[in-house]
């Protein structure tokens, strides 16, 4: 399943109001809760923080990919946030991150989880697409970018 299938305006936030790594994760998890994609906040939030404790998912090029397995979702669930101001996510290149992909997957669906993460890894190699994403001003604009690209 392509990322474009999983993304709709209600799971995209532009701009994020968070200022720190835990705040970004909580804000995106709350977005999923509000969209009816999560039954609760704390368990997935804790799972995401536990994964970050193993090593930051902040990549180069301003992308961060917080992700975790959790029994609180039945299918792969994705949220996207854009923070034009940049947020310190302890990224690999030490620069602030401004595009966040948050993924939650049930433990028995590793295949789709890995496919979605691999798609994000490829997106991270496209400076043009990343520039367009980081300059998007509405959730709908972000969704359209995924459908057109």
């Amino acid at each position: 399943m392509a990322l474009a299938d999983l993304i709709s305006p209600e799971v995209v936030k532009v701009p994020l109001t968070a200022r720190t790594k835990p705040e970004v994760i909580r804000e995106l998890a709350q977005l999923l809760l509000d969209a009816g994609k999560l039954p609760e906040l704390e368990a997935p939030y804790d799972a995401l923080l536990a994964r970050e404790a193993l090593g930051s998912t902040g990549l180069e090029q301003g992308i961060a990919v917080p992700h975790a397995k959790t029994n609180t979702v039945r299918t792969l669930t994705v949220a996207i946030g854009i923070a034009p101001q940049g947020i310190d996510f302890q990224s690999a290149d030490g620069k602030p991150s401004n595009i966040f992909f948050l993924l939650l997957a049930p433990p028995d669906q590793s295949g789709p989880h890995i496919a979605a993460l691999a798609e994000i890894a490829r997106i991270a190699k496209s400076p043009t697409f990343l520039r367009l994403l980081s300059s998007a001003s509405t959730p709908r604009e972000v969704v359209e970018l995924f459908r057109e690209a």
Partner: protein
Amino acid sequence: MDGPIRKILVYVDGTEGSITAAQYAICLARFYRAELAALYVVNTRALGELLKARIFVKAEQEEYLRDLEQDAQRYLNHVRSLARKKGLAIETLSASGTVHQEIKDFVLRNRVDLLVMGELSSVRSRRDELYDEADRALRSVPCSVLIVKDEERVIQLYDSLT
């Protein structure tokens, strides 16, 4: 003269669509008296890419590899059970590597006539043409490909198979 379809391969990736595809492939195999095989590919290439991109740490890569190998057995067992319920023999195989390449290799090695796959992404982006493994498989295999849609009808067909 042999029928038009002698050997069917269904690609199982754990999605609901691929299980529906397996049910349809079972119906087809019965109808055409064809041999049936099911293949799951552990996408080790993607795992390697994720480690390289630093999305995964090493321990996580190993954990996901174990998960995928367990998924492979679980889903292949499920498909085997679906076939057995209809009195059909099925060969189930797990491979690892690059998904579309493993599918293509299996088709060539086993002279598969028909590859059956679950529904593709409903939204097709230009990236899919280059990177989506199901999309690449259907373009690269030398045999005919059948994309299974309409889950409800397939389930009815499967259930009505005596």
